[in-house]
């Protein structure tokens, strides 16, 4: 029983990171219909920004986080201008390839500067964690879960209860109509990219102390976040969160009970099953087309 709970806790923790990246995916997809293959690199940029500010420059952790958030905001804006904006009127494929190109670009810039050796980032809190009987709740995992919960709540309040949030929702539902109503669609999309990059950055900050910081981090996280969005139902916000946590739990249990080397395969096997049996996911995007 203790083992089960311990695994569940860790699975939810890592799943929360997938959920944050997946959330960034979904927000961009809803605003622009673009599947952003560079979403995982957002987390990598965030993680490296933390390494540079706290480990290399020796700044305090809180300042590092603030600087990283600012870096991510600028990064999201540049990403929009360089990768999405020139292709905004083109079909699905060129934009996808463009984001893949961006992913290669970002990965190799970082690789060129820092090399392939992974860096370390200290955990956010000094305390090791909480012991509940035989159960040990690691402080960083607790932090991840708490921050994710807080972000999800904030995001809900923002989209449902502020005018700006509603404008962004309007853009994701019908760009043409939104623009006829005087909403500046281009700016809303810009804000979406900025927010999505910041979410990715936060995911990077949170996951960095658990995993080593390396450029390879991005690809694995992105693919699992992508899997999470499909399991949850493409384009669905609660679905992305549930899907992310589900993937985290599934792979943690799979690694413990079945096989460690194939840990990364479980997410994709579950994904296969979903794609073939229930492609609309748990919360369902419509897949069919109309004459």
């Amino acid at each position, binding site marked *: 029983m203790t083992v089960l709970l311990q695994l569940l806790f860790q699975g939810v923790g890592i799943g929360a990171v997938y959920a944050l990246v997946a959330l960034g995916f979904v927000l961009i997809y809803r605003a622009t219909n673009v*599947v952003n293959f560079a979403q995982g690199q957002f987390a990598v940029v965030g993680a490296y920004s933390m390494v540079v500010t706290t480990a290399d420059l020796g700044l305090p952790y809180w300042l590092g986080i603030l600087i990283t958030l600012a870096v991510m905001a600028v990064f999201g804006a540049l990403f929009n201008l*360089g*990768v999405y904006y*020139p*292709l905004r009127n*083109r079909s*699905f*494929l*060129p*934009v*996808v*390839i*463009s984001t*893949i*190109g*961006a*992913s*290669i*670009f*970002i*990965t*190799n*810039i970082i*690789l*060129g500067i820092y090399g392939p050796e992974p860096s370390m980032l200290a955990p956010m809190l000094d305390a090791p964690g909480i012991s509940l009987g035989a159960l040990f709740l690691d402080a960083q995992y607790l932090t991840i879960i708490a921050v994710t919960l807080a972000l999800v709540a904030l995001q809900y309040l923002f989209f449902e209860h502020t005018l700006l949030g509603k404008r962004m929702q309007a853009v994701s539902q019908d760009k043409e109509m939104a623009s006829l109503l005087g909403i500046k669609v281009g700016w809303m999309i810009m804000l979406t990219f900025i927010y999505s990059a910041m979410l990715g950055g936060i995911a990077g900050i949170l996951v960095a102390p658990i995993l080593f910081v390396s450029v390879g981090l991005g*690809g694995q996280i992105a*693919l699992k976040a*992508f*899997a999470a969005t*499909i399991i949850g139902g*493409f384009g669905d916000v609660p679905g992305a969160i549930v899907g992310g946590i589900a993937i985290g739990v599934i792979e943690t249990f799979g690694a413990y009970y079945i096989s460690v*080397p*194939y840990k*990364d*395969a479980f997410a*994709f*096997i579950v*994904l*296969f099953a979903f*794609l*073939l049996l229930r*492609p609309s996911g748990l919360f369902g995007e419509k*897949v069919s*087309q109309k*004459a």
Partner: protein
Amino acid sequence: MSPRARILVYFVLAALVVGLASAVPLGEYMVKLLLQAASYAIAVLGLTVLLGYTGQISLAQAAFFGLGAYGVALGTTTLGLGFAPALALGLVVATLFGIALGMSTLKLGGHYLAMVTISFQQILTLVLTNWISVTGGPDGIRNIGRPHLPGIDFENNQTYLAACLVVLFAVGGLVAVLKSRRLGLAMQAVRDNELAAGVVGINTFRVKIIAFALSALLGGLGGGLFAGAFRYISPDQFAFDDSVVLLTMVLLGGVEAAIGAAIGAGLLILLPEWLRFLKQFYLAVYGAAVILIMVFLPAGIWGLFSRHRVWAPAAPVGPLELDIEAAAGTLLSVRGLAKHFGGVRAVDGVDLDIAQGSVHALIGPNGSGKTTLLNVLSGIYRPTAGSITLNTRPVAGLAPHVLAAAGIGRTFQNIRLFHSLSALDNVVIGAERPGSGISQRAAATARALAALGFVGMAERAGELAASLPYGHQRLVEIARALAGHPVLLLLDEPAAGLNLTEKQELVELLKRLRGHGLTILLIEHDMDLVEQVADRITVLNFGRHIADGSPAEVLRHPEVIAAYLGEVPSHEAA
């Protein structure tokens, strides 16, 4: 250049390149690069078929490349087979997996398909890395064999390169030829408009599976040659990143033509060499180049050189044989037909009888279920309940291409042409529908031209469908349906968006078709047009039929007037 001259030039060019590759000393390093480029180019040709012709995305081409490579590697080492049987083994495995991936397209497209292929790619990489007892794990496999043929020394790298180039030229030529063949046209039809492809008689699911199988086969072939070339392989050579590279190659070179694969593969193998001076940043520049290509070269490098050439038909256009047996009785009989979407009853218990040789109009206010009914009749939707009988044959719930083969042709309210094909190719695809009795290309072309001539569009046969004006696109769409020899033609608002002259021409065309005895079911809002051509009218409202009869009767029917103009207040209630 005539096709024959083109083939000759191609053979001469191929012989020249192969001869040069085997004879001119190139240096070990250059030979290695060219070996890589040639084997990649073969795999990229698979993507030309899959993505370029058929419009299906795959981010798993490196996985198929890997399956072919491991087939040759394990075959020639562990299993002790010769090169050819080992390669065959790899190709069979790759093709089977390709078919399996293709089957997932039954339900999925777009980003879902991208994800299926990524998942397959990831799982294969994990298996290659971790199934150490078979694959050797991350260490890979060494001492891979090459083919043995008396008199040819394949141990010489340049000889082996020449052999790879022979394969590349052969595959490239076949892929180029495929584009204009029946299968190739069907693939492009699926890419341009899958719904319309089904309705003109193409088994879209089968075409997509074939495309995936061919793509996997070519991926495996490239990989098999690659394994023989380098004699050592490891799992990291066939990872997701390599799939991305292969995809980028096809997009860079140009996805629409076979030569694009060679350009893309050649350039992207050599480009990093040219970028070496950038040291550790050369891959970053490569990533940036990918974005720039997408922004500035949407059709790839080959797209800069290829233009659609407009031509006019040289051969005289014959008359269209509609071959309709003069028969009496009911052609199509619909009973209790229903189509529900969740709680919405779009069509709710419709009966309909269409007499042989009649023009039957289906009218009703917007949202009354007319187009849904047409979609059920042409197989795009499966009916929730009810029966459809075509000439005594029950046809309810059959797939669009089966219904097309049974002789149901249709047009769409929002025109659905294969926009990147010429008007003629659009209609040729219609003429080649199964059951039309035409299998030879020459006969199909003659019939397609005749159909275009019938609607007055023969002169524009050589123009791109997308570049035709709206009214002409409507006519080409009708010609596409006519070329397939339909026994029943379904027209969905053919007059929508036409000006007065065009409308009058359409009326004349419909009258001529009726004169030939063709049975037509027509959805139309233009009552003037309906009165001029219809023998019978059925009126739908809220998914049910409310009136049925001759135009004069129906248009005076009180329920019809109410449906169109709102309830007329009755005097009793006042």
